[in-house]
């Protein structure tokens, strides 16, 4: 161990081993109490490396426990350090050069593979979900693996009425009863539909429960939390990926009103995570979002799109889900219904979030949540029973949206267009779109509360909006038709020409609802605008989405994902939320005035037994290391997990380490009596540049630091001595507390309270 210390100075890239020892810390007290830079001096010079890397790394040190927060600053610095090392060795040999090339390329390789895998999986899910969905109604006899549309690919039935029928495609009634018409076959089909829906749902639930419970739900709240730096072991594992992919198809096919788009995010994340295992030198830093990562994700998306395009599942060579083209322009007076749709979307979003959260809370708190399998089966049964009679709810939700979006073309395929042919007879039945509306709203509301199977809320909330939008659009169209000499319509609409596009209304409504639920404004407009493939409709979309956001924000500022994150209590600091209070760091830090003093370790006068006692008596995840109990001057920060691992490792591998051995965090062993056992050096696990703020730092700044740098904890000092600690969880608690009692400051700002506080601290103070 001692020899390795020589390497410190030998390494040209570590010119100065900044730390406690090279600066004669012992002289500091003589300089008086106003020497506040004692900590800062050490940090500035050691910023090139946080940890002492030169010792043999102990396996396990630097990893995290389940449900812990990642320290981004530390990880980033470690990664840079590694990078610098590789770069410095680059010129030494061809092997090192290839290693550095490999290191530089591994990130890109991973994103390429991730893109490939996500694209392939998306294609697979698409194909399988369509097939399974049609399996509920019938089966293709000539080729079992085709869905209805593909089965009739070469069908010669040319009339409109018969176009869905082809000899190869048999419904279940035809197969079992031998007749296609009549009440008997209807009942048979009904029964088979329910049977398949139930069995899909049951299979999905069982698979999730047995193999990968983490595959439940949409996964987006958890992904958001993980990206912000939180460890959920196994959440992005290979079993989760497999089960999520499989059950997603089953869940979509079981007819539950859910989409596969949201959970695909989780699937893709799993892919990326698994591929990054291939390249062990790629640290978890790749989760973090610097600009480089943005480029890489862009590249991954490109690869995925390319793969999906080359798989080209359904022959229409359209990558996007709902490709729509409108030809008619929109008119200024139409902005009013668009804004109304926005209001509806906002109201719906607020209502949906409230209802969903209430439902989830209820499931969490009451006995109802004890039977998740039963819940899913029950909801699936109800859905299947309700959905079958209505042709709109019977089909896939995404298909329903597609139908709602598209304008009535030459092929009046959808019932939604039927009123048009009868318009000449001045007879319009508005009930047609109302029918799916009623059922659709109902089912979507119900099923989104349900979350055991992989489910998304993109598609269902879009469906609601599209239904509402289509209704408004048709109403407008009827209005324009009947009152075509009213001044508004007279000016813009010529008689006979259609000036209202109900499909556009549906799209605007869908965007508004999605915006109301997720509160993503800009990206949403871009997404929907991509779908329409025209710049012309960007104003209606923006108007509706902005209105929906404003209306939704009036009822509650959080989107559905943030609400779920909060409900589950994940440590996620929302970047959008503003911190407007005037509290100071010392009012938030632990220990609180009533708490026992902060658990600290001293630099060189603890024994192994004492260290273990500290660790076993407390449950903190990290301990500040100070020079001595008396001075409380900060040296660094050591993580609990690292300490336990290092001590265990030392006791197993190094000789002469007993319970009475002295533990030291300094560069050189302290002078000990001759007969004492061999001391244990733990400098390698000490973070010598922990982030510190002074006790008077406003919380505004502290919150900003935590948010922007992804900090895990931050030490609070006063005149260079340690006062306390602020962790991410403390900040979240503080925010929660302020939300509940907005005007209640934790400690009053009067100076007297500060003296009390400083007197309470154990080190004798030299301050005035």
């Amino acid at each position, binding site marked *: 161990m001692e020899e390795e210390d020589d390497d410190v100075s030998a390494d040209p890239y570590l010119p100065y081993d900044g730390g406690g020892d090279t600066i004669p810390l012992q002289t500091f007290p003589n300089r008086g109490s106003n020497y506040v830079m004692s900590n800062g001096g050490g940090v500035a010079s050691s910023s090139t490396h946080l940890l002492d890397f030169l010792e043999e790394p102990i396996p396990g040190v630097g990893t995290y426990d389940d449900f812990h927060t990642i320290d981004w600053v530390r990880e980033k610095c470690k990664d840079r350090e590694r990078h610098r090392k590789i770069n410095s060795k680059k010129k030494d040999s061809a092997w090192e050069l290839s290693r550095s090339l490999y290191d530089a390329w591994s990130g890109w390789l991973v994103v390429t593979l991730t893109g490939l895998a996500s694209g392939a999986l998306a294609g697979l899910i698409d194909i*399988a979900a369509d*097939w399974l969905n049609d399996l509920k109604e019938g089966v293709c006899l000539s080729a079992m693996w085709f869905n209805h549309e*593909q089965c009739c690919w070469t069908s010669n039935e040319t009339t409109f009425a018969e176009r869905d029928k082809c000899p190869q495609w048999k419904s279940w009634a035809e197969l079992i009863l031998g007749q296609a018409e009549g009440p008997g076959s209807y009942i048979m089909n009904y029964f088979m539909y329910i049977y398949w829906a139930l069995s899909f749902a049951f299979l999905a639930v069982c*698979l999730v429960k047995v193999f*990968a419970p983490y595959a439940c739900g949409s996964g987006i709240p958890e992904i958001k939390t993980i990206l912000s730096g939180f460890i959920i072991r196994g959440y992005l594992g290979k079993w989760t990926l497999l089960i999520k992919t*499989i059950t997603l198809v089953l869940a979509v096919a079981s007819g539950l009103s859910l989409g596969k788009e949201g959970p695909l995010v989780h699937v893709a994340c799993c892919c990326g995570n698994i591929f990054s295992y291939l390249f062990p030198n790629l640290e978890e830093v790749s989760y973090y979002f610097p600009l480089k990562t943005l480029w890489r994700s862009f590249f991954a998306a490109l690869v995925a799109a390319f793969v999906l395009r080359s798989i080209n599942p359904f022959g229409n060579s359209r990558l996007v889900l709902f490709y729509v083209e409108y030809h008619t322009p929109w008119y200024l007076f139409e902005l009013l219904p668009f804004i109304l749709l926005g209001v509806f979307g906002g109201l719906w979003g607020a209502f949906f979030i409230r209802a969903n959260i209430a439902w989830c809370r209820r499931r969490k708190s009451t006995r109802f949540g004890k039977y998740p399998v039963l819940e899913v089966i029950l909801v699936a049964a109800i859905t299947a029973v309700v959905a079958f009679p209505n042709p709109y709810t019977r089909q896939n939700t995404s298909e329903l949206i597609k139908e709602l979006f598209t304008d009535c073309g*030459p092929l009046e395929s959808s019932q939604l267009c039927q009123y048009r042919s009868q318009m000449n007879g001045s007879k319009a039945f508005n009930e047609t779109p109302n029918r799916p509306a009623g059922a659709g709203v109902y089912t979507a509301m119900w099923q989104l509360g349900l979350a055991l199977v992989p489910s998304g809320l993109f598609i269902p909330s879009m469906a609601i909006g599209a239904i509402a939008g289509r209704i408004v659009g048709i109403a407008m169209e009827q209005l324009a038709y009947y009152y075509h000499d009213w001044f508004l319509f007279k000016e813009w609409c010529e008689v006979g020409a259609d000036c209202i596009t109900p499909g556009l209304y549906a799209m605007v409504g869908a965007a508004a609802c999605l915006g109301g639920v997720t509160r993503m404004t800009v990206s949403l407009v871009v997404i929907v605008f991509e779908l329409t493939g025209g710049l012309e409709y960007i104003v209606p979309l923006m108007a509706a989405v902005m209105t929906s956001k404003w209306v939704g924000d009036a009822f509650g500022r959080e989107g559905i994902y943030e609400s779920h994150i909060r409900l589950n209590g994940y440590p996620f600091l929302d970047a959008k939320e503003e911190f407007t209070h005037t509290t100071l760091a010392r009012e938030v830090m632990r220990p609180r005035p009533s708490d026992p003093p902060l658990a600290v370790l001293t630099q060189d006068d603890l024994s192994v037994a004492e260290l273990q006692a500290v660790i076993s008596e407390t449950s903190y995840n990290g301990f500040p290391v100070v020079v001595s109990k008396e001075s409380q001057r900060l040296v660094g920060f050591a993580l609990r997990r690292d300490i336990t691992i290092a001590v265990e490792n030392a006791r197993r591998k190094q000789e002469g380490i007993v319970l009475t051995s002295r533990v030291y965090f300094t560069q050189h062993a302290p002078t000990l009596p001759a007969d004492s056992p061999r001391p244990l050096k733990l400098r390698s696990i000490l973070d010598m540049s922990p982030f510190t703020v002074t006790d008077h730092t406003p919380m505004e700044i502290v919150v900003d630091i935590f948010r922007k740098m992804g900090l895990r904890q931050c030490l609070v000092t006063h005149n260079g001595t340690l006062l306390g600690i602020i962790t991410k969880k403390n900040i979240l608690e503080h925010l929660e507390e302020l939300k509940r009692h907005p005007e209640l400051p934790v400690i009053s700002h009067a100076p007297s309270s500060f003296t009390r506080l400083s007197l309470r601290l154990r080190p004798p103070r030299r301050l005035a």
Partner: protein
Amino acid sequence: MSWKESRLSVLALIPVIILLEAVVYAESKNFEDVRCKCICPPYRNFTGHIYSRNVSQKDCTCLHVVVPMPVPGHDVEAYCLLCECKYEERSSNTIKVTIILYLSVVGALVLYMLFLLLVEPLFRKRDSYTQPLHNEEEAEADRSNTMLERVEGAQQRWKKQVQEQRKTVFDRHKMLS
């Protein structure tokens, strides 16, 4: 240890994927996989029709596809203007391979699930009399050489993980969203 294993399994997966792709591409384009579909709406007293033929992309027009032209010669132009023709291509092999792959994976999982739920408890019950519980230590040590024992150890570890997850999700209700 665990990441090494997952790395191996991922490495083993890649050739499988490549092989599948190769199979898909080797069975070259089925001639049934292209069609030109024309949708012609009702015109005068002719009802609407759908025509679909197997022609090349540049021939995908109403004139080529609508073969017994229902309207007399002077009306062809007007009729064809109303028709919408689309050239479509699909790959039935991809669909076939995907569905078969999907079904086989689901089948394997269901079998494994049944094995875990029904068959294994019987085994365990019999085993527990003869062998006192020591598998925890063994799973940790994992020094055994035979493939079977190593798989056993990995399975034990995995089971423990799933148990943990189940506790998080179902008992503490932490993850439900």
